[in-house]
């Protein structure tokens, strides 16, 4: 049996190189999980498609659309944002499960870059979000949704959606580390639905009572939904200040969430030794 000894990183360059390598190894770990559990991944990708079909065809007939257009044109950008919100559940469950099973402790007991666990989760979940968005865009095209203002503005809309996912990612990581038990995902699911529905994702806010419309429009999700509708050239509705400044707010809201939850998650991870 050969003897293998460890090196300890000297200097900032080596450390950075190792941090990148460790983060990538952690990403590969999560990708390997998906390869071993394709069913679970498929369910995650197809669940939003099912909701599109439910709302687009089952409830869609009764929905009022700004300017009297097609409900599915109105629905799809909302659904894109909702699928970004659903990502919280996946992130939360994975982070909490790792903490509960002691794999996180194994990583912490090794000479692994401290950032690696979180970076790996971040990269992998963003890849998953991009894949999910691609599936949902294909689904949208199949049910008659289109973007009307060119590739550039469509790409900007996708960028804003992924920025929203990035913000929710840090919320999910923080909650997962705080709770440390995957069973609590039920509680997260119960919270995700009202947050999703209490927005303009499915319903035109003009059809709501005034106070409720205000709450729905100030939902961080709503800004991204409105901005995506504008950039894709889909019916938007609105006329309030927040609706007029949707693109700005679709950048401000996610950055604010990241500014709060990124340091909280990092601090929480660093304090697992307390």
């Amino acid at each position, binding site marked *: 049996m050969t003897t*293998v000894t460890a090196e300890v990183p000297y200097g900032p360059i080596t450390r950075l190189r190792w941090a990148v390598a460790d983060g990538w*190894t952690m990403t590969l770990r999560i990708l390997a*999980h998906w390869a071993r559990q394709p069913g679970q991944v498929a369910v995650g990708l197809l669940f939003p498609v099912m909701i599109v079909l439910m709302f687009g065809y089952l409830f869609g007939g009764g929905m009022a659309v700004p300017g009297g257009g097609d409900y599915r044109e109105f629905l799809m950008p909302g659904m894109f944002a909702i699928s970004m919100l659903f990502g919280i559940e996946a992130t939360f469950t994975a982070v909490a499960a790792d903490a509960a099973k002691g794999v996180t402790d194994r*990583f912490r007991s*090794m000479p692994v870059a401290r950032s690696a666990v979180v970076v790996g989760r971040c990269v992998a979940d963003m890849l998953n979000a991009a894949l999910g968005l691609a599936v949902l865009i294909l689904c949208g095209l199949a049910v008659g949704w289109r973007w009307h203002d060119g590739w550039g503005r469509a790409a900007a809309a996708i960028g804003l959606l992924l920025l929203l996912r990035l913000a929710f990612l840090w919320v999910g990581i923080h909650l997962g580390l705080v709770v440390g038990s995957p069973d609590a995902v039920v509680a997260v699911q119960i919270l995700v639905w009202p947050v999703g529905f209490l927005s303009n994702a499915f319903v035109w806010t003009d059809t709501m009572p005034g106070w409720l419309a205000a709450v729905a429009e100030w939902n961080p999700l709503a800004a991204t939904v409105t901005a995506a509708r504008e950039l894709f050239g889909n019916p938007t509705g609105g006329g309030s200040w927040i609706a007029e400044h949707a693109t700005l707010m679709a950048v401000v809201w996610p950055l604010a969430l990241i500014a709060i939850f990124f340091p909280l998650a990092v601090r929480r991870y660093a304090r697992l030794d307390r």
Partner: protein
Amino acid sequence: MTFAVVAEGLRKRYGGTWAVDGFDLAVPEGTVCGLLGPNGAGKTTVVRMLTTLLRPDGGRAAVAGHDVVRQAAQVRSRMGLVGQSAAVDEVLSARQNLVMFGRLSHLGLTRARSRAEELLERFDLAETGGKPVKQFSGGMRRRLDLAVSMILSPPVLFLDEPTAGLDPRGRNEVWEAVRALVATGCTALLTTQYLEEADQLADRISIMDTGKVIAEGTPGELKSALGGDRVEVVLHDAADLPAAAGLVERATGAEPSLDPDTRRVGAPVREKAAALAELARLLEAAGLAVEDIGVRRPTLDEVFLHLTGDARDPRKEVAA
């Protein structure tokens, strides 16, 4: 003598109570130290502090010559951790786990792969290396645990209740693997609830209760402190007790103790096999009806009663 693990006055508080309260330990290089204690004694908290997973609230500790708080990175690259404090990835296969942990130890992909094959072979996991760990038996999983902690051939190995929840076969597998590792010269700290396990594997044993070490010595020293093995006879009829006591004294040469309630008579023995055979022969010859006869090893409970009972049992205070 150089010490691979040193702890001085280590303390950790959870809420209002001190889970570890003034823990001292010194493990010489190349030896196996058994840390023995009941649930809640603070064994796992000690291991978590020594392996940098938990920050001590007081005292200091060093592993392989490096401080566990200030030089945590150096400690992490010089020790392995097995058992309830650390897990492997259950979704991945044994091979994938070993390659991943090899890469996280910065071996590079090629070396991580060859190291994984080497360890699968050595821990007898080569055939099942492709299956997800979820499907492993308890013994196989613990062997993989050991393999993962050996990726870097660490000079110090922490084994936190490595056989907890295993059947006797799994326990033997793990013991074999641990013996093989120790033969290569690494230092090990083993926590366990089983006296037998510490007896099998450890050079020295520290007994822990309520957050500190209350006794320390070689297995032999601790056993002789307890009076060692006992031979015991359970009689069919309590009236035979005095006669049996005389025979027990003849066979063991020691003062027998009688318990009329359970119709039991016993005495400490040194040459247990010879004494047991002699006693069986004498009882047979005397025609006494015996329900049970045997040699009993002291249990962990008895170690604790012996070590802590004097202070706690008011009846014994006068004698002490």
